[in-house]
């Protein structure tokens, strides 16, 4: 039994996104949360490249992926800056301590 390339890649995409979401659901460390976001983005980016490949527009797919890389690197940067500031002001990166806003 062989698994086709698109199937493999789409499983990889969903796998990366799934693992990222699982991390968001379970982790308590803010830096880990940002790691999880990066994993999510890798998956989505791969989906765009795959889509380009499947429709014969690899170049277009790549072009989109570059924009995604830029955007999400910036998200990561802002996230890390927030994390640094959280550490400075609150003193911990534990998400359980970031629950003062509730109800």
């Amino acid at each position: 039994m062989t698994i086709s390339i698109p199937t493999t890649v789409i499983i990889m995409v969903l796998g990366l996104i799934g693992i990222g979401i699982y991390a968001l659901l379970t982790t308590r460390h803010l830096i880990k949360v940002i790691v999880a976001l990066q994993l999510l983005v890798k998956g989505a980016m791969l989906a765009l490249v795959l889509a380009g490949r499947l429709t014969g527009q690899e170049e277009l797919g790549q072009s989109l992926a570059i924009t995604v890389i830029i955007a999400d690197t910036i998200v990561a940067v802002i996230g890390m800056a927030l994390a640094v500031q959280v550490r400075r002001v609150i003193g911990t990166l534990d998400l359980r301590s970031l629950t003062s806003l509730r109800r």
Partner: protein
Amino acid sequence: MFHVLIAAAALVCAIQAVRAARLLLSALWLAGASALVALEMYLLGAPEIAVIELSVGAGLVTVLFVFAINLTGEENLDARRTIPRPLSWVLLFGASALLLIFILPGINQSETGQVYATFREIFWEDRQLDTLLQILMILAGVLGVLGLLSDQKTDLSPTQKDRRA
């Protein structure tokens, strides 16, 4: 088969990145996953983006992580859960299974068409609006980091002082 191996390896790296106890290791596993994703992209016929992913995703972001981890320090968090573990499994598998059922039949039916433009044309001409907007995003990022992390010589609020004290 090669694709399956890469996929499996990437997923293992991802899992390790999530599971790793130390943040530094986590960042390194992430870099590994990133490199494998870049490889897969290369195989899918996207060499340019593979290079960029390798340098930015696996390189720059990892450096940033190391930097951030240095600034914030490692922190040992006890093992208490945030939400019940079974619930997260149910949610995860529910969503993934549904998405797979929806998507898989459609994804293999797509066909390879004709390549009609070069990467350079598409990136700099067809998609120039996206490209221009990247500059705006970078600007927002720079302003964000400056805004968040610039030196705090200004007044500390009373609550802040209490917390420090």
